[in-house]
């Protein structure tokens, strides 16, 4: 007696650009271009090539030198600890902050301006103060990191929570769903793509924040920022470049990891576009 309609099960597969040449070719070409220009400039500098040592020198003197690389990686490890701790704290505070604001207009009106203020204050000017207040150690560095990485988490999460389709909202309203149910079953899942996009931005900023912290707080075990400072003052061009490149690669790596996590988590139903 049931209304049966036969339809063939079908799956629609979304094609992704799969050919490695078209994916990796263009950026590699740009890299080759940058390296070529780099070579030319350091050749033109002649005697003063400590200002910009040629790429091969950076490789042989720093990257292939176990003791230099050992120093760089060890200090990067300390910086990474600060960055990841700061990022974790920023994610938790950012999401809670945004959830609080999403619950009532008056909370949003009271709290959002301060998220913007946080984004706008010159953190670099505040850093010495933070050192005076909280010491020059791990704790203070993490605070700097959180302050720099927090805003994208707050604004992205809030945007995500508020972007819920009005029809879906009414669907929940018709079942008299409570605030908490709407948050957990509708708003939060709907906000996940925006939250992951925010995490990617915050991850990059957290690394920057940790390095900035290193620059100012040189007490205790040095992070990669203070190592960069040392190389700079000793005019060790090759080592300086190796440290900067390593630090940047670390930032890129974290950015990529969070992109990947986001794709794994919501890529099945949400299309992030090409990235």
């Amino acid at each position, binding site marked *: 007696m049931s209304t049966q309609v036969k339809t063939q099960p079908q799956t629609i597969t979304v094609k992704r650009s799969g050919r490695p040449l078209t994916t990796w070719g263009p950026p590699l070409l740009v890299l080759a271009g940058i390296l070529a220009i780099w070579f030319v400039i350091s050749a033109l500098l002649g005697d003063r090539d400590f200002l910009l040592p040629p790429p091969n020198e950076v490789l042989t003197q720093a990257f292939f030198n176990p003791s230099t690389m050992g120093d760089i990686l060890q200090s990067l490890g300390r910086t990474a600890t600060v960055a990841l701790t700061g990022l974790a704290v920023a994610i938790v505070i950012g999401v809670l902050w945004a959830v609080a604001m999403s619950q009532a207009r008056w909370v949003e009106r009271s709290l959002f301006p301060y998220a913007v203020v946080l984004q706008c204050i010159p953190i670099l000017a505040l850093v010495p103060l933070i050192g005076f207040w909280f010491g020059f150690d791990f704790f203070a560095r993490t605070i700097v990191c959180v302050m720099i990485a927090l805003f994208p988490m707050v604004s992205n999460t809030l945007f995500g929570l508020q972007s819920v389709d009005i*029809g879906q909202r009414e669907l929940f309203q018709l079942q008299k769903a409570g605030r908490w149910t709407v948050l957990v079953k509708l708003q939060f899942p709907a906000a996940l793509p925006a939250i992951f996009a925010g995490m990617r931005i915050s991850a990059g900023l957290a690394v920057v924040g940790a390095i900035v912290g290193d620059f100012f707080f040189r007490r205790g075990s040095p992070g990669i920022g203070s190592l960069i400072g040392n190389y700079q003052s000793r005019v060790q061009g090759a080592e300086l470049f190796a440290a900067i490149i390593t630090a940047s690669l670390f930032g890129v790596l974290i950015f990529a990891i969070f992109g990947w996590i986001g794709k794994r988590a919501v890529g099945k139903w949400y299309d992030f576009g090409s990235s």
Partner: protein
Amino acid sequence: MPHMTISATTTHLLNFQDVAMTFPDGTTALSGVDLTVNRGEFVTVVGPSGCGKSTLLRIASGLETASEGTVELDTDRIGYVFQDATLLPWRNVTANVELLAELNGVPRKERADKARKAIDLVGLGGFEKNLPKTLSGGMRMRTSLARSLTLDPELFLFDEPFGALDEITRERLNDELIKLFTEQQFAGLFITHSVSEAVYLSTKVIVMSGRPGRIVDTFEVPFPMPRDPDIRFTPEFAALVGDVSHALREGHS
């Protein structure tokens, strides 16, 4: 004073008496609307866009409160199908169909049973694990229908659900809706701007005029349920469609 009561004494499921709706910005969407949906009836409201027919449904469902008049509802089992399928993109078909039962605290096993039955009823068997983005527009609307069916509605409200679908899909879904109506025994209040869809689906067609929305005419549809698809090509059907269209045009001018 506007008020909404759930009474058990009346024979009708839904009764509007002299209902008016004025929005805070001063626009009057409805004025002096009397409307009744009895058990066993499928009532369709046709009218030009912006005539307040969606507002009618929103008042009936409780999403809006009428500014004047009386609204009586004789059931709390109300299905509501939106213009858009409003599926949650992160849930597959089964999880989407289970949503309303889940929100109402129905135990896991019972709602899985309900969902399976509803999915079979709308012919989506085999697509249980599909995510909405892999479904066609018609299949999404079926999922949306199935979701409301899990509530075992006594009154089913439809807000132009097939308006965005192509003609062929729309006609198929019309036929399936009629089957569901005859088998599941809910009463329906259906909003559309298609006159032939209105006449084909319903036992009663109500014609509304625009700004402010009011009822200008009511037509009983005499054809037996379930409807034979070929009824669309009979002179009687054409004549009724003509009458409704006339009423629509007169009300509009």
